Structure formats: structure tokens, C-alpha cells
């Protein structure tokens, strides 16, 4: 590597690396290359000449052997050569350590340092720990430092070490040598284990507040204590030290204040009352900094900004508390905040980005505090105006941060109106920003500033942005548009237009909840039904329309088609033909919904009866291989033939209004047991489909598709939580959103089929993360419950409902041990109960334990694979599904998912290289189930065919169901 390539210069054109202090060499803002050359000119020293190989080692501190070794490694041309060189070195070091001759400190240090380097290259180190521990008791700094460094870096992999070093740390802490004390404190801060907390949590506060402790030691002690407090709060008892720790805010040394304030912030967050004296101290410290001239603080002035980091930390500490009650303190603080806002308007003292960044870091923190207080209208409006200026700043960073910060300002009653004045700028940002994260912030802000007065404009802009929006944010945008449209609908025809537009523009991203909701609203509001029928009829005229549009169309015309039937252009027969022209392009669930619409047509328009009966009677319906479709065709045909008009009218009556605000899931659960009236099931029919069961046009009826029986328990139809108790909140997403402050997101267990870690659940109160590991038929799952609020959860209990086939035993730290006894389909349920602010919260989730977790991958050659494939030839051993791709058909992604599934991905087995084949054995206590899988993507049709064969039919079926949801 040449000097040019590696020279550390600055980011081109963004920020000049310039030392701001007098007497230091001033660097010009230059491109990387020219800085290098200027450096070459300036410093044609020994260092740059030798750099191609290795930098010269300055005298005294170098370890020649280490530099040579590093150089050798860098010169290795291949990975193999590197490994060879490393093994040689390891052998050498091992023999030195084992040798009879006692090593001197220098050699020991050098070898330990080499081992550390090897470890950092990514190789395992299984010896040398004792030598490192020995270095700790050296009385030379350089030896001690290497010893401590080795331990801090490797301690994750060898916690046995900790016990060995506590004694050395103890000695260094009491050595009264500030350098050694700092080394020991840094080691504790870096490792921070509970054993260390037990040994030192009592000692460190004493060091921190002792009068004769050096400043640098105090800094380390404060942060060391913070680390121990985070690890083991029960062991760090401040008690008698509290007041002296708080008074560190007054310390002469700004570095001590900077370090101590982090500790104080954390402690006051947990014990606000005991630490509340820090408020007035923080205010006066802040006031002194803010009012100081740009040179007053000398060492702590950064590019003409006095103590920027300390100021930010002080402002952040104040955010732990409500506004000061003491009038004088409050006055002083408001003055500080005003000064900070004023300074933002002053001409900059330097053109350097470092100057403006440091200044604005303080400004943004001050604005956060102003928003936190939310009580000073004047400051809030000023903050808003300042951010408004940043919205058009040439620095992308500032535009981003201004949008982000304004989002919180929008929710304050004092500044909401002021935020709204920037609507045009924000819309422009949404359209023109190059960085998607900035556009995302702009969309967030539009959402936050939306109210009745500007809803139409904002929704229109968001809709038009959706047409070109990045895929990554479309789903969220759709949800936001849907929420705003309902929340601020003045007339419902606008609402219907908006949602239908949403489906037209981004149909793939419109979740079930959104289109259910538009139907609920249309059903519940007489005044919009005619308009909805007309609009959806028009939307369906488009030659290609999204399947979600067909669903909405089928439903609405089936209910209210009569309202537009007077117009000859939308006569009953025209309506029917229009719907039926889409029929063959739709998936099974949509077809089922359309069949229901047809029978409703027979009731609404007797003149269509014969046409529709003809359709129902046709072989493609009445003999459809799909049981659900066939059953509907048969029943509807019979019903239309034998029922009298009155009976028909009763059975097919218009849908009753939906109970307002009821979760659609709850409604569904209730209706499940209801009478067999045809109409009541229709919304549920939609629910069943997930887009995966694709009829695939004419050829789709070739029995390749295993659709679950319609007569089965509705809850069992889909594997994912949307129809299980797992997600009372998922199903009611849209509904809940209206009653709560903002949207929240649910991740389903299906996301966990191919991976083991992630977020299982999240709402405004609680987040549940999962980390799990599996070996053979055993598994272990760690559940992390995070309280997102500032209020305690009381009586937090969780129960795992044992399924007959999986044993679970919850342990104290939310570790669940799992043993797979035999194959299974239903995931265990986790019930969580706790009290939050007096209200009992109750939540049932499915644990993401699926049968594939117990896979052991099996490698096999092509020949073996096909032989076994043939052996598993009984019809019930095979399960197959053909389904539409839900995600981009990227080979690497597919591979990663299949590997995540737990099977071995076999290369060069399938004669068609586009296909994937996998093999694995599911380990259960009762038996082992060998399974083979073949996935055939068809990029042109955006479809997959998935075939699973295994020695047990239930396993094939289950794997097929699980996997069909993944691609």
C-alpha cells in the first residue's frame, strides 16, 4: 500500500482538517491526493520514505519484532501465506513461553502484543493469557499497558481471566500512581463484569471524591463507576457520596465535569429526587460557559465554540427534569437558551464546518430542552424559526436534523402553527432531496404537521410522492396516507378517492387492514355508498388493476352496485361482466370473494341470474380443484335455484354496519361462531388470503396447490399471527392507530422462519426481542422485555402455554428451554400480563418456534439426492405449492433464506442451475425426519414452485406452508 493511498487526509470538499490552535501547522482544505503530496513535500522525513514497508519506530517505545511481524503479514500475497506466517509465529511464541529460560518483561510484552495482533486479525488465541496477567504486575508502564490491553480485548472470549486479574487491579488502584490507577480503572470500565463490580464498586466512589485524587483519575473513576452502575446497579450505592458527586459539576477542571456529568445524568435518571440539586448547579455551569467569550475556556474551546460537548451534556442532564421551580434558576436558564438562539443568528466566527457543527450541536440540544419543557411559547416559536432557516441550508446534515427536530415541535400546541408555515419547503424536500433518509424525515414531518386545514394538500403530495417513492419507505407511507385520510376526512368521498388511489398507485403495499377499513367505512356511511360504487366501478375499467382493487370492487359492487345500476353504462350486466373479466387473473381468495359478490348480484339484480348461474355451473367453477371455490359454486348455484326471492333477500341482505372502532380481529373471532349466512363471512374471506395461494390462471387448477380446507378452523388457516391470537394488535393496527398517538409496527413470527434473532413484538409500551439458538432437538430462547415508557411495569408475568408437542420451561431471566418431542404445526403461545399505570395489559404472542428450527443440514451428492427423492415417492410425503413472489427474486437473498432455514443448500445437484435444492434432517425426540426440498423460481412469471418431500407427511405440509410465506 502506498503512502498516497493511505494518507489520512480529509473528506474531499466537506471539511478541512485544520488544527485550530495557534502554533500548530495549518492544513489547507485539499483533496486527499494533494494533501498527501503536500505532506510529502513538507515532510520528506525518514517516516514517509520507509512507509512503503513499515514506519520507522521511534526510539524507546518500539517493539522491533512486532513491526517486522506486522510487515510480514502485510506482505503476504494470499490468505494461505498469511495463515502460514501466523502459525509459524504462534509456534515460535509458544516455544518461548514454554522454554526453560525465563523471559524478560520486554519479550513477554512483545509476544503478548503479537498474540493480540493475531487475535485482532480474526484468529483464535488459546494461550498467552497467563503471560498477559503476569505483565500486569510489572512496574513498567509499557508492559502493564499491553497486559491490560490484552485482557480488555480478549475478555469476552475468556472470562476465567477476570478472576486472575482482580488482584493486580487492586494493587494498581491503591498504588497512588495516577498512571497505574488510570490503567486499572480503564480495564474495569472496558470489562465491567459483575465480578469486578463486586470487587470494586465500593472503592471507586471513594477515589472519585477524594480530595487528593488527580483530575485524570477522577475522570476515569467517574466513567468507570458509570459502567459498573449500568452493569450492576444493585452494587453501586451512592448514598453518602451523592452530594459530593453532584458537586463535581462545580469542579475547576472541565474534563472532570465532562466525565462526571455522564455519571450524574444516569444516576439522576434513576433517582431523580436524590440528585435534583444538580439542576441549579448545571444551570449555573451552563450559564458560565454560554456567556464566556470564545477564547475564555482555552483548552476547552473547539473552533471558537466554548466547551461544546460539555454544553450538550449539561443541556441533556436538564432534560431529565421538569423546568426548574426556582424562579431565579429558571430565569437564568431561559437566558442561556435565548443566548444560544441568539448566537445562531450571529455571523460565524469561522467558516469551518467544525465551528458551525459545534455551535449547532449545542443549538439542537437547546431546542430539545425547549421542546422537553414545552412551556415557553416564545422559545418554541423561535426554535421553529431557526429550524426553518436550516431547512434550506446547503448542508444536508442540517436539513436532515432540522426536519427531524421540527417533527417534535409539530406536536406542541405552541409551535404547531409555526411549523405549518414551512409546508412548501418540506414538500419540496420530499420531492428533491437526494438522500432517502432526508426524504423520510420530510415525510415524517408532513405527517406530524398535518391537520384538518392542510390534510388535502399533504395527502395529495404524499400520494404523488408514492408513485416514485423508494421501496423501503412505501409501506410506511401507505399507512400514513391511510391514517391521515381517515383522521382528517371532511367528506368521505375524498376518503374513498384517496384509498382507491392508494391501491392504484401502491397496491402491493396496501395491507389488509387498509382495504378492510375502507369497506367498513363505506358500509357504515350511507352517504358515501353510491359514490364509492361509482368510483370503484370506474377504477375497475383500467385494463390492469391491482388485485386489492378487485377485492374492494367486488365487495362494494356486491353490496351497493344497485346504486349505480340506473345508468346504462353501469347496468347490472355491465358491472358483472367487468368484475368477471378480472376473475381469471385473481388468486383463489379473491375469486372466492367474487363468487360471493355474484350471488349478491343475483339478489340485487334478478336479471343477471341466468348469466351468473351459467358461470357457476361451468366446469371451471363447479369442478374447480380448489375445494373452497367448488363448494361456493355448488352452494351458491343451489341457493339461487331453490330459494324463494324472500329467502334469498334475507340471506343476502346488505351488510349491517360494523361496530365502530372494533378491532377487525375481534369482530372476526366473534363472527366465526355466527350463523352460516353467506354475507357475514365475506370480510373474513379476504382475511384468509395472503396472496401466496395463487391460482395461476387456467393451469393453476392442476392440483399442484394445496389449499387448506375451508371448513377447517379459521384460525388454523394461516400460519402467521394475522389470524391467530398472536396479534390482537396486529389485526387492529389501523383501528388502534386512531386511538393512540402514532403508528407502531408489528413483526410477525413468519419473519423468524429463516432467522433466529430480532424483534418479535413492539407497541408503544413494550418491545420484545428474541435471540434463540438450536441444536438437534433442543433449543434455547432468550426473551428481552423492554419497557419503552418511563413508568414502571408492575407485576410483570409471562406464561408459556405448553403445546402438547413442545416442552417449555420459563426460567427467571426469560430464558426458555425448548425440546422438540415430535413434529408440530402450532407454535407455543406466550402470554404476558402486567400492570401499566393501573391498567392490566394482557398480550398473547406466538413464539417463533417452527419445525425447521430443529433441522440438521445434510450434505449429499447429486446421485444420493435423487435416489432419496425417489424413495420418498408416496403422494402424501410430498407437499407442493406454487406461489407468487412477494419479494425480489434475488439469488443471494434466496440462498441466505434457505440457509437460514437450517437445511444444507446443495450445489450442482439440480440440472437447472436456477433451481435450489436442500436437504436436512429434523431432529425430534421421537424420531428423525429426513426432508428434501426443491425450489424452482420462474423469474418471468414472478412465481415459485416449491416441493418438499419428507418421510412424514405432516412435516412436508408444514414446511411447505412455512416456506411459501418467505419468498
Amino acid at each position: 500500500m502506498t503512502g498516497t493511498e493511505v494518507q489520512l487526509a480529509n473528506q474531499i470538499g466537506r471539511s478541512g482538517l485544520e488544527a485550530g490552535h495557534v502554533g500548530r501547522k495549518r492544513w489547507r482544505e485539499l483533496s486527499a491526493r494533494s494533501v498527501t503530496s503536500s505532506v510529502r513535500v513538507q515532510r520528506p522525513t525518514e517516516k514517509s520514505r520507509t512507509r512503503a514497508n513499515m514506519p520507522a519506530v521511534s526510539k524507546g517505545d518500539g517493539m522491533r519484532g512486532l513491526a517486522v511481524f506486522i510487515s510480514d503479514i502485510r506482505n503476504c500475497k494470499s490468505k494461505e501465506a498469511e495463515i502460514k506466517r501466523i502459525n509459524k509465529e504462534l509456534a515460535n511464541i509458544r516455544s518461548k513461553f514454554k522454554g526453560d529460560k525465563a523471559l524478560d518483561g520486554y519479550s513477554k510484552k512483545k509476544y503478548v502484543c503479537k498474540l493480540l495482533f493475531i487475535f485482532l486479525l480474526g484468529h483464535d488465541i488459546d494461550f498467552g493469557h497467563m503471560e498477559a496477567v503476569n505483565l500486569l504486575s510489572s512496574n513498567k508502564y509499557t508492559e502493564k499497558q499491553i497486559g491490560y490491553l490484552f485482557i480488555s480485548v480478549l475478555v469476552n472470549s475468556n472470562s476465567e481471566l477476570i478472576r486472575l486479574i482482580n488482584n493486580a487491579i487492586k494493587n494498581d488502584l491503591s498504588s497512588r500512581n495516577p498512571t497505574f490507577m488510570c490503567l486499572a480503572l480503564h480495564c474495569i470500565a472496558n470489562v465491567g463484569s459483575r465480578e469486578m463490580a463486586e470487587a470494586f464498586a465500593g472503592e471507586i466512589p471513594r477515589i472519585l471524591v477524594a480530595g487528593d485524587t488527580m483530575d485524570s483519575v477522577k475522570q476515569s473513576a467517574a466513567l468507570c463507576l458509570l459502567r459498573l452502575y449500568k452493569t450492576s446497579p444493585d452494587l453501586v450505592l451512592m448514598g453518602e457520596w451523592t452530594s459530593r458527586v453532584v458537586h463535581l459539576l462545580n469542579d475547576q477542571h472541565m474534563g472532570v465535569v465532562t466525565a462526571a456529568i455522564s455519571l450524574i445524568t444516569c444516576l439522576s435518571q434513576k433517582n431523580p429526587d436524590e440528585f435534583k440539586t444538580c439542576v441549579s448547579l448545571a444551570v449555573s455551569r451552563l450559564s458560565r460557559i454560554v456567556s464566556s467569550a470564545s477564547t475564555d475556556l482555552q483548552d476547552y474551546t473547539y473552533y471558537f465554540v466554548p466547551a461544546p460537548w460539555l454544553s450538550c451534556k449539561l443541556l441533556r442532564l436538564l432534560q431529565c427534569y421538569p423546568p426548574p421551580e426556582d424562579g431565579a434558576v429558571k430565569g437564568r436558564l431561559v437566558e442561556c437558551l435565548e443566548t444560544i438562539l441568539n448566537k445562531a443568528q450571529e455571523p460565524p466566527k469561522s467558516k469551518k464546518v467544525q465551528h458551525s457543527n459545534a455551535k449547532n450541536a449545542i443549538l439542537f440540544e437547546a431546542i430539545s430542552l425547549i421542546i422537553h419543557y414545552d412551556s415557553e411559547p416564545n422559545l418554541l416559536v423561535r426554535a421553529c424559526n431557526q429550524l426553518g432557516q436550516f431547512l434550506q441550508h446547503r448542508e444536508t446534515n442540517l436539513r436532515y436534523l432540522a426536519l427531524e427536530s421540527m417533527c417534535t415541535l409539530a406536536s406542541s400546541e405552541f409551535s404547531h402553527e409555526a411549523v405549518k408555515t414551512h409546508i412548501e419547503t418540506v414538500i419540496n424536500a420530499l420531492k428533491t432531496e437526494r438522500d432517502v433518509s432526508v426524504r423520510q424525515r420530510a415525510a415524517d414531518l408532513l405527517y406530524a404537521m398535518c391537520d384538518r386545514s392542510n390534510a388535502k394538500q399533504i395527502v395529495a403530495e404524499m400520494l404523488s410522492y408514492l408513485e416514485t417513492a423508494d421501496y423501503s419507505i412505501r409501506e410506511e407511507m401507505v399507512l400514513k396516507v391511510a391514517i391521515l385520510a381517515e383522521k382528517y376526512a371532511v367528506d368521505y368521498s375524498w376518503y374513498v378517492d384517496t384509498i382507491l388511489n392508494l391501491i392504484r398507485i401502491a397496491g402491493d403495499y396496501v395491507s389488509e387492514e387498509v382495504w378492510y377499513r375502507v369497506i367498513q367505512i363505506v358500509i357504515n356511511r350511507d352517504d358515501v355508498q353510491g359514490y364509492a360504487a361509482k368510483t370503484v366501478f370506474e377504477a375497475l375499467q383500467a385494463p390492469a388493476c391491482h388485485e386489492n382493487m378487485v377485492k374492494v370492487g367486488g365487495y362494494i359492487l356486491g353490496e351497493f352496485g344497485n346504486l349505480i345500476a340506473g345508468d346504462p353504462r353501469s347496468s347490472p350486466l355491465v358491472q358483472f361482466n367487468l368484475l368477471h373479466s378480472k376473475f381469471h387473473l385473481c388468486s383463489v381468495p379473491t375469486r372466492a370473494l367474487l363468487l360471493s359478490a355474484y350471488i349478491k348480484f343475483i339478489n340485487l339484480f334478478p336479471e343477471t341470474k341466468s348469466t351468473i348461474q351459467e358461470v357457476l355451473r361451468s366446469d371451471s367453477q363447479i369442478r374447480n380443484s380448489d375445494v373452497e371455490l367448488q363448494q361456493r359454486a355448488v352452494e351458491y348455484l343451489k341457493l339461487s335455484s331453490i330459494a324463494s326471492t324472500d329467502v334469498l333477500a334475507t340471506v343476502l341482505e346488505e351488510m349491517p354496519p360494523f361496530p365502530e372502532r372494533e378491532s377487525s380481529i375481534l369482530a372476526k373471532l366473534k363472527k366465526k361462531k355466527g350463523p352460516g349466512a353467506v354475507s357475514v363471512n365475506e370480510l373474513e374471506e379476504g382475511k384468509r388470503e395472503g396472496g401466496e395461494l395463487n391460482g395461476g390462471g387456467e393451469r393453476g387448477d392442476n392440483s399442484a396447490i394445496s389449499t387448506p380446507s375451508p371448513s377447517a378452523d379459521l384460525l388454523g388457516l394461516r400460519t402467521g399471527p394475522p389470524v391467530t391470537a398472536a396479534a390482537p394488535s396486529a389485526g387492529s393496527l389501523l383501528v388502534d392507530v386512531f386511538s393512540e398517538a402514532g403508528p407502531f409496527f408489528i413483526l410477525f413470527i413468519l419473519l423468524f422462519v429463516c432467522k433466529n434473532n430480532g424483534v418479535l413484538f413492539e407497541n408503544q409500551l413494550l418491545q420484545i426481542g428474541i435471540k434463540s439458538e438450536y441444536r438437534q432437538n433442543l433449543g434455547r430462547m432468550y426473551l428481552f422485555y423492554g419497557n419503552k415508557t418511563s413508568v414502571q411495569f408492575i407485576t410483570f408475568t409471562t406464561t408459556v402455554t405448553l403445546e402438547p408437542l413442545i416442552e417449555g420451561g420459563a426460567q427467571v431471566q426469560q430464558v426458555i428451554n425448548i425440546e422438540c418431542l415430535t413434529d408440530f404445526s402450532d407454535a407455543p403461545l406466550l402470554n404476558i400480563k402486567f400492570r401499566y399505570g393501573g391498567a392490566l395489559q394482557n398480550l398473547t404472542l406466538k413464539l417463533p418456534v417452527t419445525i425447521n428450527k430443529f433441522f440438521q443440514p445434510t450434505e449429499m451428492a447429486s446421485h444420493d439426492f435423487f435416489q432419496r427423492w425417489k424413495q420418498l415417492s408416496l403422494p402424501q410425503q410430498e407437499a407442493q405449492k406454487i406461489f407468487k413472489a412477494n419479494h425480489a427474486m434475488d439469488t443471494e437473498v434466496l440462498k441466505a433464506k434457505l440457509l437460514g432455514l437450517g437445511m444444507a443448500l446443495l450445489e450442482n445437484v439440480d440440472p437447472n442451475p436456477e433451481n435450489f435444492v436442500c436437504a436436512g434432517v429434523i431432529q425430534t425426540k421421537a424420531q428423525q425426519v429426513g426432508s428434501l426440498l426443491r425450489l424452482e423460481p420462474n423469474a418471468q412469471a414472478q412465481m415459485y414452485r416449491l416441493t418438499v418431500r419428507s418421510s412424514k407427511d405432516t412435516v412436508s405440509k408444514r414446511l411447505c406452508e412455512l416456506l411459501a410465506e418467505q419468498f
Partner: protein
Amino acid sequence: MICENWIRFILIQNRAGKTRLAKWYMQFDDDEKQKLIEEVHAVVTVRDAKHTNFVEVFICGLTCYTLFPLQFRNFKIIYRRYAGLYFCICVDVTDNNLAYLEAIHNFVEVLNEYFHNVCELDLVFNFYKVYTVVDEMFLAGEIRETSQTKVLKQLLMLQSLE
């Protein structure tokens, strides 16, 4: 929660993705560390000067902290590029972007002064000294010392010790 604002890790990587420094302030196992290193490299290297210096990432990891057992959440990487090197700091999404952006620069200026026009090779050959510089300026995921003069004075003092 304000108290959750601390640095989760500091990474220095070159454009090819080679790690020049990794300092972890939260417990990850080795696989997770490797994944994070790759992820950070992937998200940071595709960005140019028109992008912000901030990227949100989703991290799941175990921590040893009883106070904050939950670490499945959004974080952000605040990064700055110096020639071929990316200096990245990972913090909580609610933390102060610009303060950390300048903390990076402050750190780089110290390295530059300490190594006399620092270059990537200095970080490779003197990796054990870089850790010392980091510990002087950042400890337990917090900013420990911000004064370049004070840090350099301390480093020179340590350099003079045997």
C-alpha cells in the same frame, strides 16, 4: 431515555472494509461483531457527499447491562470519512448527531498530532497505542476528555514512560 445515550462502538475501517480499530462498549459475541463490521461498511461506503453523515441501523445484541437488558432497537451510525478511512460511532437514535460528528473530528485531530500526520499505516503498526488514545478520549461509551491539549500532554507523558 437519556441515560441510554452512550456510544455502543467505535469503528475505523478502510474503504476495502478492513477494520483498523474496533472498540466495543456493549457486549456482542464474535459473530455479531463481524456482522456489524460488515453492515457498517456496507451502509457507509455507498454514501457520498450529498448524503448526511448519519445512517440509522437496526442492531440486536446482548448486553451485560442489567439496567438496559434490551438491545434490539434502532441505532445510528455517525461517520466521517478521511481519505480512505471511515471513522464511525454508533449511538442511540436520540443522541446528538453533531456532537458526535465533531467528537470524531476531535479524535482525528489528536491522532494526527500524536502520530505527526497520521496515516492508515500508523494505525496498523501502532494499534496498541491507538487504544490508549481512545481510552483517553472515550471511556465506558462516554466522552471522557475533549481538550486536545490535555489529551496530547497526557499521551506524551505516557510515551516518555518506560
